[in-house]
């Protein structure tokens, strides 16, 4: 019977290309110092995409407001650094924790109703946070954004440099750490129960899964991770602005995930890289028409079928 364990364990084992990928990623800011800033951006956005994958790909929750947690983490971390303590890791923890709390509170909203309801509720949450941040501009800087966030050195030793290399390495390190944890999670029995809830909620209940509790937990975790991404964003750019809550953010990250493939964690990473690079290239050629090509791409993607266009072995996230 031991030979049954092997195929299962193989799925969660580290593939040969993974360490190679990460090694390349970590060396990139040093090999291409002039691109360190965009590498940093990619790492942050990849983390954000991974968090959405937990919710969308593994649990089947269609959310158009995931940026709520990104923004909440960003502002919390920025405010923390500005008024309480400039240590990056501490701020990261605070930002993540705050987003977790928000996620736990919001998880009550996504449990009931149809896909459309969930879409609206998640969207509404992000819009409400946008308005709140706008209103409390004494605290948040309103539409000018929260400026002057000066960070202390990471681990007390590595100062953030102007080129952004330290920032990029910092973000990559956090990305790797969280990614590793998320990876364990999705390949665990807990992760399997999430997929069961996604695939067939009725049956999941009928085998004894406390569906609502599971969804609430995963939503909270994903919120925390998104908050971490937001905190990184605020810390590495020294700045937090309202557009972190905007619909475009939530839509962009969904796009990234779809490009990379929903339901296998690397989809978020791959999608982030591809999206950012495409954006860079296309924006340099025709700045206004990025929207058009993105739209066309989406239409074609859906018509051809997400599975057939990319990774055939990926599971399609069924909403």
């Amino acid at each position: 019977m031991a030979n049954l364990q092997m195929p299962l364990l193989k799925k969660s084992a580290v593939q040969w290309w993974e360490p190679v990928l990460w090694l390349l990623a970590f060396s990139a800011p040093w090999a291409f110092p002039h691109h360190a800033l965009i590498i940093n951006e990619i790492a942050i956005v990849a983390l954000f995409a991974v968090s959405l994958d937990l919710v969308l790909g593994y649990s089947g929750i269609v959310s158009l407001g995931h940026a709520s947690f990104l923004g909440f983490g960003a502002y919390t971390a920025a405010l923390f650094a500005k008024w309480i303590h400039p240590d990056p890791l501490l701020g990261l923890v605070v930002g993540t924790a705050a987003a977790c709390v928000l996620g736990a509170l919001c998880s009550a909203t996504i449990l009931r109703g149809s896909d459309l309801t969930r879409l609206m509720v998640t969207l509404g949450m992000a819009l409400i946070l946008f308005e709140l941040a706008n209103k409390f501009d004494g605290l948040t800087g309103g539409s000018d954004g929260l400026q002057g966030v000066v960070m202390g050195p990471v681990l007390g030793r590595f100062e953030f440099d102007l080129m952004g290399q330290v920032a990029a390495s910092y973000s990559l390190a956090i990305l790797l750490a969280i990614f590793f944890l998320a990876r364990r999670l999705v390949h665990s029995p807990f992760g399997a129960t999430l997929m069961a809830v996604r695939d067939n909620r009725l049956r999941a209940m009928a085998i004894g899964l406390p569906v609502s509790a599971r969804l609430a937990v995963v939503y909270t975790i994903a919120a925390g991770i998104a908050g971490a991404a937001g905190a990184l964003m605020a810390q590495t750019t020294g700045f937090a602005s309202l557009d972190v809550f905007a619909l475009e953010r939530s839509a962009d990250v969904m796009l990234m995930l779809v490009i990379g493939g929903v339901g296998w964690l690397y989809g978020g990473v791959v999608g982030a890289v591809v999206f950012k690079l495409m954006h860079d290239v296309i924006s340099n050629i025709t700045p206004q028409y990025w929207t058009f090509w993105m739209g066309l791409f989406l239409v074609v993607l859906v018509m051809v079928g997400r599975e057939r266009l990319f990774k055939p072995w990926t599971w399609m996230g069924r909403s």
Partner: protein
Amino acid sequence: MTILFDGIAYGMLLFILAVGLSVTMGLMNFINLAHGAFAMVGGYLTVVLMQRFDVPFLVCLPIAFAGTALLGAFLERTLYRPMYRKPHLDQVLFSIGLAFMAVASVDYFVGSQQQIMQLPEWLKGRTELGAGTPWELGMGHYRLFIIAVCAALTVGLQYVLSATRFGSRLRASVDDPRVAAGMGINVNVVFAMTFAVGSGLAGLGGALGAEVLGLDPTFPLKFMVYFLIVVAVGGTSSITGPLLAALLLGVADVAGKYYVPKLGAFIVYTLMLAILMWRPQGLFVRQGGK
């Protein structure tokens, strides 16, 4: 009172804009986030006709309706139909993609500036009633016109739904497409016509609303949220539901912006969130409806 009046005008406009979306959702179970693009098309069509070809405003309105309806019918047949069976995530992505393309195309061909709508003389102006009293009512003539047109359309829609054969076919198809097909109703035709009419109404709404809401290429994205709110709160199984939801939304938005300008749209979003938490299927859903 003026606020109430303006709110009702806004609400009725929203209703006409969103009713097509609601019926499409209920009928085809399709989340169409490109609905706002049809409204935009109607608006731009009207502006172009008026500015370049000197077509009178009143004539433009039916043209806006018909033109957008034709476009809707065409797209339904070609692009939308294969999408009905796809999961909701795919539908969302697809329609967002269409919306993006529409927005970018309009930006390219017409430019990104706000379009100014020149209203005919007889629609400009205001009537003041009871000036100086707490019941002061200032009725902009254009808003009065909007209310009148939308009310007429609503009555017409309700009539079509309840008293015509097409209406009963539509209602049967919404209730259960398979059974309806089994009864000999050509569900495809019902879908196509409904989509066309819904888009046409959106186009008409876009034309009517250009003066009140503004018209620029970002219109579909800006207002999509409002349409979705109307549908989510009002439900998809009637047209009175979205009507009431739209009125509620219109009044809440206008009142909110007037009394508490700093919070702006916050009130609307919070209200929507609260309603959806309380009744996830929408406020006005029939028992046993979708």
